[in-house]
């Protein structure tokens, strides 16, 4: 059985597909901090600099999902699902002009998921 750290709802995946057609390669980066923080941002791949300070959590709808290492330390025991809601964010995330906003749903990882992921990630 394969487990993942991050998954996506159908509704959110549809919007991701639409935005990929419009903007080409994109990435998710989990934001933190004020205002629209604590939400995932969908950005053009070439716009956002990813390096060793970021951790790759997996792909959703063919889009890599990243978060900064230090943030991940506090998130690593949780499973994430990228979902969609109506809303008006004030960030640079690409779905905002559609009147939609990606949102993270979280749950605790189960024991079996943790041991699988620990093995896989070494």
């Amino acid at each position, binding site marked *: 059985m394969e487990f993942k750290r991050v998954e996506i709802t159908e509704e959110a995946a549809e919007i991701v597909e639409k935005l990929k057609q419009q903007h080409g390669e994109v990435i998710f980066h*989990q934001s*933190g*901090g004020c205002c629209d*923080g*604590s939400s995932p941002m969908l950005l053009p791949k070439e716009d956002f600099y990813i390096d060793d300070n970021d951790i790759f959590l997996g792909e959703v709808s063919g889009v890599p999902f990243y978060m900064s290492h230090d943030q991940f330390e506090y998130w690593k025991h949780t499973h994430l699902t990228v979902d969609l809601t109506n809303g008006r*964010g004030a960030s*640079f995330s690409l779905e*905002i002009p559609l009147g939609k906003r990606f949102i993270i749903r979280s749950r605790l990882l189960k024991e079996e998921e943790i041991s699988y992921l620990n093995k896989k990630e070494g």
Partner: protein
Amino acid sequence: MNYSKPKFKEKYGNFINGKFEAPDDGEYFENHSPIDNKLLAKYPRSKESDVKKAIEAANNAKDAWGKTSVAERSTILNKIADVIEANLNEFAQMETADNGKAIRETVNADVPLAVDHFRYFASVIRAEEGSASELNENTVSLIIREPLGVVAQIIPWNFPLLMLAWKVAPALASGNCVVLKPAEQTPASATFLAEKIGDLLPPGVFNVIHGFGPEAGKPLASSGKVDKVAFTGETTTGQLIMQYASKNLNPVTMELGGKSPNVFFSSIMDHDDDFLDKCIEGAVLFAFNQGEVCTAPSRLLIQEDIYDAFIEKVIARTEAIKMGDPFDMNTMMGAQASNDQHEKILSYIEIGKEEGAEVLTGGGAKKLDGDLSNGFYIQPTILKGHNKMRVFQEEIFGPVVAVCTFKDEAEAIEIANDTLYGLGAGVWTRDAHQLYQIPRAIKAGRVWVNCYHDYPAHAPFGGYKKSGFGRENHLMMLNHYRQTKNMLISYDKKKLGFF
């Protein structure tokens, strides 16, 4: 006075070069009130061409504006303050309609603080001096401050007018022209301000562009024709804006929020007096502005020997928070600013519960009656847990506080600093030693000592760690909007002797 939703026009324009202009492609977005989710007005969905026009207008205005005397700029800033003050109730109603916050806050805090902010910067530039150093008997170094030119400012939706004042007042005071992008959730007060003060400033000095981050924010932040970018918001967009600015080698200032600890030591319970009453309020200030404050005291740290007695009082005070029509002066807490924020807050309460946090009070959405039933309300919520939980580590930006206990000073400091952020903190004690030593040990830009959520002008505000950099709300912000010109003057008639 009775307050109510003000009258809005059907649609508004961008404010460019002293005039209101329709967006080039004629597209607008709808701005709804979070109070009842009803349409307020339409604002331009600007694109790159609109942004370019605003930047060009600012560039055309910058030389003349940069040469105005401080007396002239000071007079204009004072006039701006007077205009906001004269329209205080209109601004307050607009802010409440647009953001959802309670009218008692906009009337008593947001708008008066914005007025004072313009007056503060009008004053300090009159009292400033450059410096002259005699380096030796024939050499004098003069330091003169010069404006950067054109400043791009991207502001948030939690205090739309006040955050505008924090950014616009020092930028104008130091002789810059501004292109401002308000948050798309709260475009109203910046537009209203442009209507009221447009004729006080030369065309192009103050420009307001509406629109979405990826469409209007990006061309503004990445433009090679602005000389600085100032941003308040979250960390990913902060990094993105810094990357854009790095291409132009532009300076930036960033205010990116926090997860501020509010620390209560045993001695607060030594007496049942006014100070204890103030401490209880200090803990409940997590609900101020619906918790939508970068410095919200969202982690409550209580010394374990007073925990039971103190939290009981904090819960009782929290449960006394009156929610209702934000236009009612008795309402203490209004609506969250948007549906997605409302959803996000609820999802955090859920993960908190799943991680094992105990809900001491609140714990869900709040349903109000009538028109308000479509608004975005959350019950003030206290979650008990430990500092490694996600609700202790991430900015929820809602009326949710995470509480834990500590044994002694060392543990209080350790927990307080166990966070990625460092914007605000609170320390409450009757112990004179703790009053100094604990604030010094907490890694945050602002530590309130025996108070919280006070934002007077002339008290610098800004972050440590991932909370950003730059210090607003103080005259030191002037230098974040200026260059340093050094004139090194020789009064020696003799040559160096090298050639």
